């Protein structure tokens, strides 16, 4: 019935309900069609309940009725960040480099690559980010040349619920 649920969603979001319903008759058995109708009614009822809730919440002049914090808790987080993950390797050997500092222009945050040359951190969501990869442990590593990279993030990534970007970086030896 997963297909059926998708159809219900389509029915609710599209306008051609009648035409869709007629075409469905060919695709489902009679029992499935009855179940589909039931699901449609439930979905419409749920949607209407949510509208009613939003209308009433809005009408009582509490625009923040849906945003709250527990009295001894924190404000809610609206998730305006982005997960940056990546791997830093030596261009010459292809081997991962540990201890490379990954930082962003005009941002207090930074992180370092681990033993596998990997890094991962959340930063504030932004369309364009200017990264710097610096060899802060030049004595231990092979003295790599610092690298600056400008990352432009497209809308589909930025607007997703859990935006994530993976960077593959190669550093050249000095």
């Amino acid at each position, binding site marked *: 019935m997963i297909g059926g649920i998708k159809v219900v969603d389509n029915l609710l979001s599209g306008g051609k309900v009648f035409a869709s319903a007629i075409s469905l008759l060919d695709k489902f058995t009679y029992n499935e069609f009855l179940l589909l109708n039931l699901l449609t009614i439930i979905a419409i009822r749920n949607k209407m309940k949510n509208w009613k809730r939003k209308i009433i919440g809005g009408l009582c*002049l509490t625009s923040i009725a849906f945003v709250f914090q527990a009295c*001894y*808790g924190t*404000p809610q*987080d609206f998730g305006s*960040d982005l997960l940056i993950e990546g791997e830093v390797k030596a261009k010459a050997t292809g081997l991962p480099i540990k201890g490379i500092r990954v930082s962003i222009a005009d941002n*207090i*945050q930074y992180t370092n690559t681990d033993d596998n040359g990997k890094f991962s951190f959340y930063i504030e969501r932004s369309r364009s980010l200017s990264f710097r990869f610096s060899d802060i442990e030049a004595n231990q590593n092979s003295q790599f040349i610092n690298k600056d990279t400008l990352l432009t993030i497209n809308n589909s990534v930025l607007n997703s619920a859990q935006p994530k970007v993976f960077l593959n970086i190669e550093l050249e030896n000095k």
Partner: protein
Amino acid sequence: MVSILNQALFRMFKEMETKRHELNYLFWECTTRCNLNCRHCGSDCSKDSSYKDMPLDDFLKALDTIESPSENFTVVLTGGEPLLRKDIEICGREIRKRGMRWSMVSNGYLYDSEKHISLLNAGLGALTISIDGLENSHNWLRNNDKSFERVDTAIGLAANSSRLNFDVVTCVNKRNIQELESIREYLIKKAVKAWRLFTIVPIGRAKEDDEMFLTENQFVELMDFISKSRTRKDIDVKFSCEGFVGKYELKVRDSYFFCRAGINIGSILIDGSISACPNIDRTFKQGNIYTDNFFTVWQTKYDLFRNRSWTKTGQCAECKDYKNCQGNGFHYWHGEKKNVLVCHNQQIEMI
């Protein structure tokens, strides 16, 4: 007239929210160890808690029972002092891996630049830090001479992060009530955008200390201070949602009073107990993650939280404002539960 209609609509809204009881705010009492020994502590926390920190895996198993977490679902790490946990960043990252968000309540003592960065890196999204006065009165309440200096650093770091949804909270008492204007100016200078004020609940260590509690006149003074401060644009000052404040409703906060404990707010406490806000009397626990499925408990229990008619007792029994107040904040029901511990509205009406 408009106000009466609004309140009636808000009651309808509360009923709908209660029926829906969507979990979108989960406290995790991840430790009861604390590096301070505050005079007003409701949990009697200390350095040597009798409980060990809850293992992360135990918490995650409970978290994983939540089917389709709501939009903006947030796990709020609280304590004790959460920063005493060495694995706090790992905890945060594990929560984020599950598509959920996390935030933290801290006394700020251990919140330095390095910690600030590592927490942001781990996906911290919201933070509350408490400051209870200017230097002398804060240090007095916190029982620690360096406490103000440390929290000052923490506030500076957090307030300057555009990523964090950050606010400062203050427990108003007899010592700091005269400092509220100076605290507000201090916070504005530190670039703090939001400030929440509380009174102190007469439980735990605070119970026997009269200096913790405002007189009726002082409470009204507090309401007037908040109400006046809310006309300013440079900082959002509000009274916490701890209780119903009658004629000051909407003058001291953005919304009418609505205690969402057990309606939208759940908790997993240090011993695995399943409840609502951590300051609620522990006899209200609804289950335990070590024996029950957390989400099943959330979906099927919490009757006392979702039907509060039992609070129509003691002084609430004949109260004309009961329909809007419904027994004040849930955390004001302790012990025998025969009467509410504090009635804010009564304090206002006595003046």
